[in-house]
């Protein structure tokens, strides 16, 4: 074989080897990628079945690099939030948003996480970031509205809910819920014309909710239309006989229009349903006074004041919780106040937040047991 031919064959073989090598490496990479993607898909399936630990197991095998890795980090964060491992979730999601500062989903989950931890300041910061990144999503504005309302920042709540109400790419029911929340904010602020405007925008809902009729009644009452307001609030109670806001309003209307017997009846129902409703208890006390039932009036006034003091205590503790996102004790205290108010649902939320901060806090664990 001539020397030139030999050289050519060798070159050809080398070339073939390189091609085979590259092909093999590509095949390996593709298999690996397929495996990572399949792990992510399997994790997603677990999340759908609320099997968060299993999902995290799959996601841990994916690693952090690349697009798939980032997806895995984000899903891990979601699993941790949804399984109540809030502190771990904060760590994972914070890493995620540090890596991708433009990741709206990362901030969304982080906000949810902070909200569940009672760390409102951090939750608000994350939600505001989401609204910067994704202006088509009404949810962060809505949650902002809720947080601001909880902290009596009604102006900010209204602004957030107004932004939410301007987003049109949401289903009609959600849109109506947002408009009702906005109307509620307006009523709290004393902006009854604006509240009426918001209610008109969702008056296509059928059947109307108790909340809708109650808010209409608030507006009518502010316009001195006592009969209309009474009719509307009664309609609200026909739809939802235990609608707390409707009971509160009807009791107040009765008291202010010299019908103390009816005020006693309605306010009694309200406080029976919600012992922490200090507003109705105050109305009850005033109605008893009008009827000359001084002992009953005194008793209800004392209870109303005690309840109000507990709410003041809640406000103080909530502020402390905002400043200390990892403080288990302050969350436990919040839970205890809610227990005293007879609100086991709210107590359970704070006990879970407390345990998320310190899983070894036995007092919180004991209180959370049914």
């Amino acid at each position, binding site marked *: 074989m001539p020397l030139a031919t030999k050289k050519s064959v060798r070159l050809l073989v080398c070339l073939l080897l390189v091609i085979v090598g590259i092909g093999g490496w590509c095949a390996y990479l593709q298999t690996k990628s397929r495996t990572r993607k399949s792990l992510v898909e399997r994790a997603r399936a677990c999340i759908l079945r609320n099997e968060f630990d299993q999902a995290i197991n799959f996601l841990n095998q994916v690693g952090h690099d690349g697009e798939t890795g980032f997806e895995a980090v984000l899903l891990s964060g979601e699993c941790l939030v949804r399984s109540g491992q809030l502190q771990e979730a904060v760590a994972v999601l914070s890493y995620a948003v540090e890596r991708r500062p433009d990741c709206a989903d990362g901030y969304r989950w982080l906000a949810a996480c902070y909200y569940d931890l009672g760390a409102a300041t951090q939750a608000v910061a994350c939600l505001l970031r989401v609204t910067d990144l994704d202006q088509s999503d009404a949810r962060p504005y809505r949650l902002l509205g809720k947080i601001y309302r909880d902290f009596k920042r009604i102006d900010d709540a209204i602004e957030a809910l107004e932004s939410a109400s301007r987003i049109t790419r949401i289903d009609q029911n959600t849109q109506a819920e947002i408009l009702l929340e906005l109307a509620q904010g307006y009523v709290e602020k*004393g*902006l*009854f014309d604006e509240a009426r405007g918001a209610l008109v925008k969702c008056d296509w809902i059928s059947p109307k909710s108790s909340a809708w009729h109650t808010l209409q009644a608030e507006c009518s009452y502010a316009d*001195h239309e006592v009969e209309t307001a009474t009719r509307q609030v009664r309609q609200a109670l026909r739809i939802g006989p235990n609608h707390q806001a409707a009971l509160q309003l009807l009791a107040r209307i009765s008291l202010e229009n010299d019908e103390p017997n009816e005020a006693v009846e309605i306010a009694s129902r309200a406080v029976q349903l919600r012992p922490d409703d*200090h*507003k109705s208890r105050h109305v009850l006390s005033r109605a008893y006074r*009008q009827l000359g039932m001084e002992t009953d009036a005194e008793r209800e006034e004392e209870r109303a004041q005690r309840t109000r003091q507990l709410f003041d205590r809640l406000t103080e503790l909530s502020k402390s919780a905002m400043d200390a996102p990892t403080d288990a004790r302050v969350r436990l205290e919040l839970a205890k106040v809610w227990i005293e108010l007879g609100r086991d649902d709210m107590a359970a939320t704070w006990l879970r937040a407390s345990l998320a901060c310190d899983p070894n806090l036995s007092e919180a664990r004991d209180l959370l047991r049914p």
Partner: protein
Amino acid sequence: MQTRRIWILSIGLLAAGSVSLSILLLRNGDSSLDPTKPLGKDKSDRANLGAPKPPPMFADFIGQSQIRFTYRNGEEANHYSILESLGGGVAILDYNEDGNQDVMLAGGGGFGDGQTIHGLPNALFRNLGDGSFEEITEFAGLAQPLFYSHGLAAADFDNDGWSDLLVTGYGRVALYLNLGDGTFREVTIDAGLTDTGWSTSAAWGDLNQDGNLDLYIAHYVNWSFQNHPQCFSEGRPDVCSPRKFGPTKDSVYFNQGDGSFADATVHAGLVLENAKGLGVILLDVDGDRKLDIYVANDTTDNHLYRNQGAGRFEEVGRIFGVALDNDGVPNGSMGIDVSDVNNDGWPDILVTNFARESQALYRNQSGRGFVHVSQLAGLMAVGRSFVSFGVGFLDFDRDGAEDIFIANGHVVHHPTDSTVKQRPLLFRSNGQGRFLPVSASDAGSYFESTHLARGAAVGDLDNDGLIDICISHTNDSCAVLRNNSAHAGHYLKVILRGKSSARTPVGAVATLEVAGKRLVRFQKGGGSYLSQHESSLFFGLGETDRVERLVVQWPSLRETALLNLPIDRPLVVTEE
């Protein structure tokens, strides 16, 4: 061609008109209740769009009146002390008995080196009777600034025929005796007024039924530079909330009838610890012809001291339903005034409150208690952004129903719930317990702009039978608003002079029978915020030009009845 041009021109004009109308309607429709923005047109205005627009109800009178004065709070020292937040008051009084209402304004104070606190001069302006005023502070002997001042309360405490003056403030009060020659003499120590607290509003009234005017002095909180925490708002230094400080007890001084006073706080039973008093009014709430005391407290329960006779009082605020708002929560209450808003003959109480709260209107239930009716009365329809201080019931259009003026302005430098400067509020009464906000454009230019307002007093400054308004602003010139209400009805101005009762017969009730209606006015002690309204009683008569009967019930339990009275003029009624 010509026809086409006309068509194009018509369509163009129509389009331009539509755009203009839309803009106009949008503007008018913007009824934003931001305290910096004036109210849009009210419903009655919309109904009268075709009618010629009347002139604004209130016009700036400061230029003509020559009342140029500014209350200073010393904020330039950057202490951010709560002392700076209270502001100053206004008194409308006829100090020289010439039939013209004069104006006194508190001067405030400032801070020196080493956290010292000093006062600034108050000012007295004499009404010259031609619509102008002349400052006579120096001549009257009132120029010496004694302390950091806030409030003013005028009454003839020694029954000598001349209105005397009390000034409140930080660390002491000053009682000025009117000598009747246009001058005053400070008699505080001689009179036994040893008050050293931080005093705010004060009220004169005969609390122990001895024919002499006693004195109630409200006290605020226990702030001093030794108790001066650093507070922040939005991360910046700011004035602390009153919640950061402890309360201080109010004081009551009984007039001995010899020019001196005795501290009767303990004797009267006014020993409540949880009060941060800013406003006070004396009136008979339960119809027993004895003066009761109502105190507006900041962030704590408002107190109603019911007069049990013999100079003793019992606190019944919660029992009577005037301690809390309609949710059962104590408000940040500042100013007070009283009127019979629903024409049932009983005094109803209006209290001005902090932002996120509403003005509280407590309707009197025939002396058995009160019901909070702000929403029903329409007072909540302006939103909850206002930090409200001075307040006055005034029948500005003389239709027989007393309307409401409220002065507003925030207390902190960086509020999160509202703005620092705020516009004032004017409500028109329908005579049946319902109030509608008057649009700023109808009310006048003062109502279209924002102010840091505090004390306010109402009275007829130009003797035209229309009630004018004077307002004190912190660190800005005071405002004098002349009532220009067009087509205002007839009126009767009643000046009561006691004989067996104190010469200023606080607690007297005047009932006017006119055109089948009964209009009731109360001779009040104190009221508004740090201020003193003109003490005359105004009855708007509307179109009616004949008054059938006027009955005055005096604090001495005597009664005076007068028939067929002249109208559109002042009428002095002296106790027989």
